């Protein structure tokens, strides 16, 4: 059946080519699988249907992972036309499994890159329609009530003032958080980057299970500070919540994407949607208060509200690092697993030790003590230590094999997880003893 469909599509295409038929008024339903909330999809749907009378947009809301799995499980008889989400790596997964249809958008006025990141996939499998950067969001009332200064950099979040006030989503569960972690690792280097991440983690209040859990907790004031993607903060501001957002200097902007599903039942309608979202009219919808994403067409920024960031003009975007997708892709599962095994599942220990370290630090500021300082430094080193090097994470055949699977793999993934968990447990136990020493000696 699939073959027949492909054949029909090919016939239809060649007919279009032969007669050079202009884009005719389309009919029917365009089905899109998306991780975007109703606040994003509703205004887009309205504008799209207005611009393309006869077409209706059918929105299926799923989180990114479930969406990928859905497209995968339904490949024998595709029911959706488009996949529309933030995380570029989800699109990489689909592309590698040959689940996306290549296409060449006709829309004009969209540059090659936003920040340092190419807007479209080099093979034409998916297309950026909006840009997003990673950073820190906070609740103003919460910070004022707890007398905490506004954070600006990742390293600020490692300070004592922020202990138990920070929240993040698990990178294994949230594509955007994964990119944030990867950005810090690429920007600061593997060892220093993990050091920063673990020092921040010692100040975490919680590790949320879904991306939106973090802005939700910050909006309602359950937690003061969240590590999030920018539009969570901008759309919360748009909805009236007392929150603010800052891009740290080590960050990046990456595009949110849209792609045509291979074997889409309404391919012409899918193309019409892509052309619409890349057109000036479609790009302007992104500025709605409930959406607030950075358009990829620079001209649209003329209509943006005051204070809205412009990645094509603002100086701090120019300085942002180049994000290496291939490097990220090669070690995705390893990085996420390391985060969970070293941080998520030991969070209480890590927090308790970090609290003691903050205490020792405060004591030392009043009265210096060399042995306490040495114990403190040694404890920090133990916490920051990693069970694998950067090279091992992406190149060691044993590790790569275990995480990719396949008949030639010698070790199971579960074995590495155990090893790393044991490593963390061991190091944190030693660090705890040292931290206790440091506190005692610095009194």
């Amino acid at each position, binding site marked *: 059946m699939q073959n027949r469909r492909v054949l029909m599509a090919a016939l239809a295409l060649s007919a279009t080519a032969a007669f050079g038929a202009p884009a005719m008024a389309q009919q029917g339903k365009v089905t899109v699988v998306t991780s975007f*909330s*109703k*606040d*994003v999809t509703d205004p887009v749907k309205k504008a799209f249907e207005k611009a393309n009378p006869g077409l209706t947009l*059918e*929105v*299926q*809301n*799923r989180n990114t*992972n*479930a969406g990928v*799995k*859905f497209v995968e*499980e*339904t490949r*024998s*008889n595709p*029911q959706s036309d488009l996949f529309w989400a933030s995380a570029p790596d989800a699109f990489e997964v689909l592309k590698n499994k040959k689940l996306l249809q290549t296409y060449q958008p006709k829309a004009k006025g969209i540059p090659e890159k936003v920040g340092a990141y190419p807007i479209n996939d080099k093979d034409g499998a998916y297309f950026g329609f909006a840009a997003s950067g990673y950073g820190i969001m906070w*609740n103003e*009332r*919460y910070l004022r*009530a707890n007398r905490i200064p506004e954070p600006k950099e990742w390293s600020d979040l490692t300070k004592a003032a922020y202990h138990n006030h920070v929240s993040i989503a*698990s990178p*294994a*569960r949230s594509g955007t958080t994964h990119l944030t972690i990867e950005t810090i690792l690429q920007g600061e280097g593997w060892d220093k980057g993990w050091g920063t991440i673990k020092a921040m983690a010692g100040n975490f*209040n*919680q*590790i*949320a*299970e879904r991306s*939106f*859990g973090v*802005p*939700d*907790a910050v*909006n*309602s*004031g*359950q937690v003061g500070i969240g590590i999030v993607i920018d539009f*969570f903060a901008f*759309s*919360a501001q*748009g*909805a*009236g*919540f*007392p929150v603010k957002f800052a891009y740290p200097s080590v960050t990046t902007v990456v595009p949110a994407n849209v792609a045509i599903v291979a074997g889409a039942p309404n391919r012409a309608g899918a193309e019409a949607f892509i052309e619409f979202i890349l057109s000036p009219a479609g790009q302007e919808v992104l500025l709605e208060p*409930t959406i607030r994403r950075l358009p990829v067409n620079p001209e649209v920024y003329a209509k943006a509200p005051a204070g809205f960031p412009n990645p094509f003009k603002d100086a701090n975007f120019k300085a942002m690092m180049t994000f290496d997708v291939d490097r990220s892709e090669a070690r995705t*599962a390893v990085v996420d697993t390391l985060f969970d095994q070293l941080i*998520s*599942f030991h969070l209480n220990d890590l927090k308790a030790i970090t609290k003691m370290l903050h205490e020792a630090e405060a004591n030392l500021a009043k009265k210096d003590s060399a042995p306490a300082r040495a114990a403190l430094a040694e404890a920090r080193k133990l916490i920051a230590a990693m069970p694998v090097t950067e090279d091992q994470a992406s190149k060691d055949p044993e590790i790569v094999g275990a995480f990719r699977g396949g*008949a030639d793999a010698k070790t*199971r*993934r*579960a*074995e590495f997880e*155990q090893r790393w*968990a*044991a490593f963390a*447990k061991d190091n944190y136990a030693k660090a705890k003893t040292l931290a206790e020493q440091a506190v005692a000696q610095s009194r």
Partner: protein
Amino acid sequence: MPAARSLPALRMALATPGQWMTILGIAAFLGLYLVIPVAMVILVAFQDPNTGALTLVNFADFARNELFLRSFANSLYVSGMSVVWATIFALPLAYFTTRFEFRGAAIIQTLGVIPLIMPPFAGAIAMQLLFGTNGSINLLLDEWFAFKLPFMDGLNGVIFVQSVHYFPFILINLTASLRNIDRSMEEAAQNLGASGFRLFRKIVFPLAMPGYIAGASLVFIKVFDDLATPLLLNVKDMLAPQAYLRITSVGLNDPMGYVISVVLIVFSVFSLFIASQATRGRDYATVQRGGGGLSKRPLKALDTVMAYSVILLILALVLAPHIGLFLLSIATIWSFSPLPDGYTLAHYGRVLAESGQFIWNTLLYATLAGLIGIGIGTAISYIVLRTRVPGREWLDYVASAALAVPGVVLGIGYLRTYFGIPLPGGQPLTSFWIIIVIALAVRRLPYALRACMAAMQQISVSLEEAAENLGATKASTIRRIVMPLMTGGLLAGFVTSFATAAVELSATMMLVQNTADAPLAYGLYVFMQSPAGRGAGAALGIIAVLIVGISTYLSQSLAERDRRAKAGG
């Protein structure tokens, strides 16, 4: 006096042809919609992740993993403690409303069921807003007395939310049981001098045991298998969340998630087995009907005040999430303050304009799922308790195992098994809304089944024997004698499965392929993913609670009327 089961005397074949047909039908249903789809998915647990060969090595990995073992222990602890607290909430409500002449018994019963109808996401968000570290209560405590109480921290938070959420299982089943106790038992005990707490402890509670066990085992398994609440409270070191995290983040082909699912399923079946052993070998059936239920007595003035205070206190606590949700649904902005900044009805306007279809779908799906549930539930109870087909308990165990199957696993299993089968017209079978109904029915069948079992255990088989001796066929005995006597239990089963199906999300999430077919819980999820949608999502949640609440109230009043009619006749 309980009629001893005079079974051996009865000339009973293993089963009649009609019963065999029923057994085959049920087995086919369970096979097609539970066993096969789940097997398609959990097969992975028994395969070597690298080579695909069959192996048990993954289970060894499980046993060697400190995190999984800790999770297992935590899950057991939380489930056990939740049963304890759920019992503390449920006992007074059930006892007072059935035992005494009590104004507003139907309303109290209904309000007691409402916590079960906690729409996903909404419940935990509302609880955080009230009881969280920076929730209303703690903000006020901090302001007035400069300290905070960690209601919602770690495992205690999970126990708190779970026992508030699931105690109605005990309440519903215990109430149904209490209503079925023969009042002559109680009178006999009183004539012999028992009264007060002793009467309750020695006579009433033991006779109501089937209902209590049914409810308590549901609470235990449900808490053991629930993943949403721990995850929303950011507790990850429990078993069900670990399974979910593995499956959804590591990937469909990672064996550990399924290993954990297998452990969950096996353990749930095991605890049902333990529960069935607890009521085995005892007889709970009473012959006399019509005078059904404990005799209601008036309370003395002082006792009335005390009883009402206890009940009001419990209700205030268990309804707190709904109060929080209601506030959220009429709030403009609610951020780091004891109460919202301002109030508005705009959210309801938005939801009513956009979500009519969701509401209708929910009513349709949940009703169908509830009916399928009690239909199959009654049939299974009858086969298990009234026939001697060898291995009949397995129908019970298999159907109950559905409780332990994570919704995600069931959803993926359906997609894998049925996606390739096209409907006439070329669309896959899984895009037909009926598949959502079947998924809901299978997932909620255990609730209905437990209620039906408890109801049937309390009917003396001698009533059926009498009917048959008077010439009634098996079929008409079931229709004329068994079913009417079970009405209360059936209703309890229907209400639980209807109410919980109305707010189910995890399997639905995988199976919804068309917004026009989506139920309300899905709409709520969609709203709750954005800052501006929080109020609208809460409004939709309140609408869900109202719909299910009203349906429950209607069935409670029906049950009450039915009971009175029987008592009067």
